[in-house]
């Protein structure tokens, strides 16, 4: 055809078609998204420290393995309370003159999603140790270790944070392992990663592709409770470990623990729901139950799992007992 024998016309046509489609499927939607979305009312911008931590997260390429997006499908429920929406990312702008915006949504989940990690695992001690050597806390982890974010010193100075590393992972190191400012920043960033609450009264989007509800327990019975072992694995194991023995100097053992085995259920539930820090030889425990919105059934299942595993052998508790305590906690903490 005559037309196609003219190089100017031919290539202009091809370019025109491509640029036109580009405008429709990329540039216009991008601009629309950018203009029509604002951060949620209770969105909290990153603190200065967390912002520096984010830069370190970017520099180290953590996004290669960690996503930050909760899709609107049922299987993503474990990563957040609601599916992510455009407004969640609206507050993120260009990093600086040299670097582009970093929404860090990611494309691969070699490791867990981190959208809500600040709620799921906010423990400073855990995160520092995990960064120093992931396999010290999660035996099967394949995440890289980041020892260069730590310094070895003879004494722990004022305001410095020591990381207590199990002997197996401190070969050849005699001094104290101190978190550098960069490590602290990075942890501050991790702690800041929480899903923002939707404004009051606004219902979140539904999760699609729901599984058929597995029948959860009739109230009051210990049968038909959710899977306590799985809940333990998801919520407790990274600190207290699969064998229930904890980590020396950081996380206390549950195996043989007087609180786990004892009769003071109120204290036990309180620790799970509100956190715990009376013992200086161990790190602080965060409010795991509240942070992860555990239901009375789930808390009961976890307690029963802990009371009957690793050689522990105590009587199981019922959902009713636990629920009563949890209701009380709700009332007292509201004040």
């Amino acid at each position: 055809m005559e037309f196609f024998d003219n190089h100017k016309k031919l290539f202009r046509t091809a370019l025109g078609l491509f640029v036109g489609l580009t405008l429709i499927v990329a540039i216009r939607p991008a601009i629309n998204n950018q203009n029509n979305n604002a951060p949620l009312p209770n969105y909290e911008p990153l603190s200065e420290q967390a912002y520096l931590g984010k830069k370190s997260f970017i520099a180290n390429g953590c996004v290669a393995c960690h996503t930050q997006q909760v899709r609107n499908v049922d299987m993503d429920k474990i990563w957040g309370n609601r599916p992510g929406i455009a407004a969640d990312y609206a507050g993120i702008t260009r990093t600086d003159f040299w670097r582009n915006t970093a929404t860090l949504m990611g494309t691969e989940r070699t490791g867990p999603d981190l959208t809500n990690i600040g709620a799921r695992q906010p423990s400073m001690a855990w995160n520092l140790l995990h960064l120093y050597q992931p396999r010290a806390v999660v035996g099967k982890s394949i995440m890289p270790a980041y020892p260069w974010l730590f310094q070895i010193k003879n004494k722990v100075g004022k305001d410095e944070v020591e990381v207590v590393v199990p002997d197996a992972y401190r070969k050849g190191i005699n001094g104290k392992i101190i978190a550098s400012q960069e490590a602290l920043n990075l942890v501050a960033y991790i702690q800041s990663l929480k899903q923002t609450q939707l404004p009051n009264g606004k219902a979140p989007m539904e999760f699609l592709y729901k599984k058929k509800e597995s029948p959860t327990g009739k109230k009051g019975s210990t049968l038909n409770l959710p899977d306590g072992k799985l809940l333990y694995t998801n919520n407790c194991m990274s600190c207290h470990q699969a064998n229930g023995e904890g980590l020396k100097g950081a996380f206390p053992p549950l195996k043989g623990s007087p609180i786990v085995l004892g009769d003071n259920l109120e204290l036990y539930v309180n620790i799970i729901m509100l956190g715990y820090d009376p013992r200086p030889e161990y790190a602080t425990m965060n409010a795991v139950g509240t942070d992860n919105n555990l239901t009375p059934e789930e808390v009961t299942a976890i307690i029963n799992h802990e009371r009957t595993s690793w050689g522990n052998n105590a009587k199981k508790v019922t959902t009713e007992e636990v629920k009563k305590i949890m209701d009380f906690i709700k009332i007292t903490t509201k004040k």
Partner: protein
Amino acid sequence: MGTKNIFNEWGIIITLLLIALPIIVASILAIVKAKAIIKNYLEKKEQERFNNYVKDLTPIEVEKLEQRKRALEFALSNNELSGETTPIDNKGLIDNVSEVETLRFIEQKKKSQPRPYIEPELSKLIIWYLGCATFWLLFGTTVGEYLGIKFVAPDVDHYSWLSFGRLRPVHTNAVFWGWASLAMMGLAYYVIPRVSNVPIASIRTGYRSLILINVSVVLGSLFLMAGINNGGGEYREYIWPVMALFGIGVFISLRNFFKTIAKRTTKEIYVSNWYIISAMMFLLVIAVVAYWPSWQTGLGETVVQGYYMHQGVGMWFMLFNLGLMYYFLPQQLNKPIYSYSLGILAFWAQILFYTLIGTHHFIFSAIPWWLQTVAIVGSAGMIIPVVAGTTNFLMTFKGSWHKLSGSYTLPFYLIGIIFYFTGSLQGTAEAFRFTNLVWHFTDFTVAHSHLTMYGIICFMLWGFIYTIVPRLTGKEPPQITVGAHFWLALIGLLFYTFPLMYGSTLRGLMWMEGTKSFIESVELMAPYWLWRAIGGSLMWLSHILFAYNFYVMVKRKDKITVPTSPIDILKAKQEMDTQAQTN
């Protein structure tokens, strides 16, 4: 949902069929090759037997044979009429007769055909491009192999510059912008002047562009390892000043090609040039869209990322390679392309559908639902250009299948074409919503990336390189190492991708089931990651062989050939004379 039999899902069924295809083709190819080898062997045996027979001939038998020979050969001497003087043969009618002197027992693979004259300057430029590309292939896949090892042994080293997150983009960007891009452009410097039938507009520009791109990849890799990157989007990890060098490099070569085409002496523009020029124009558009800051806030960044990632592979690597294929395949088979118009249909369809599908990387994300749907529809539409292209290539092959067993380049072409079909359609299957549920975020994506970038792009590029370098230098690589390269790369790729696809399907289903903790899904992958490292090692080994072959094809030292034909003798004398004059 999770417990439902996944073999009832269309996306899964299609994928299974698709991934069976390359295996079948590879098996057939292996059989064809094996048959050739066996035939060879049998013939050798036959010859041995004959040799023994000859050794054992008794003098009487020899005498008998000679007698018979004399009887058979008796003929007039043919110069009964012409006498003994040599005739004058001004038109070369008598001397130009070639004849087969030796009986061949071992089937020789076809050597590349000598081609029309190519300016030595241009041929040097092309070799430089391909040489740099080979270097980046070695570098990039060494890094890739190391990354693969890190999945199995995460504590092999603790240097910040070598940590996984920093090294991963070094791998992807080096093989993208260093290896594949440079190789494609080097080959384009061959194709564009050939099909336009004019010399290239400027060789210097070629070198400038080469230097810019190399500098860009060197700087980019160093920056990434030092922790300086653009902020997360895949293949967009180089910061803009670094990517700008690459862009300028492509831009000046594009102008160079455009000028060459403008001067062409053919009336029409051969379809290769459509693809190549468009790929280069589109790359520049894509890069500008990806790096321009005014539409990147919030989710804008993600919309652009989806577009960029997909256009990068589809409109740059794929389009460019298709263009090269439209030139090299007919050349290699010595016949025209099956259907020129099918090539043109595929061209427009590719632009139309491919551009739409970027967002399929973010299905179920917070990106507008309509855009996700457009992407899924576009992914289905891709069937048109892919089927058109594959049909065209395979129909061109038709009638020449026998050439496969006798050629060391054609198997690369064929595997590239087969993966073009399976890899692309696998992408379509992955975009369905159910399959996306299972596979998204798992290593399935990584397997897909390698089936396509490696199975399609690398295999095609190798085929093209083995085709033209001997034509430029007159030196052939050893056939045994080319064969080893081919089989190691292919088997390595299958070891790399198949276990990974299987494992990641299990992992995805485990996630959907939701009754196991995340870390168990990490544990589950361990054996498949090990397989990936093993397959990766084979692939890596094959690249060493490729580099060696490349070295053999271009190395300086020539076997000394004494000219025998009058033309060569005269040429040699002329050269000597001119040398004597200049000295």
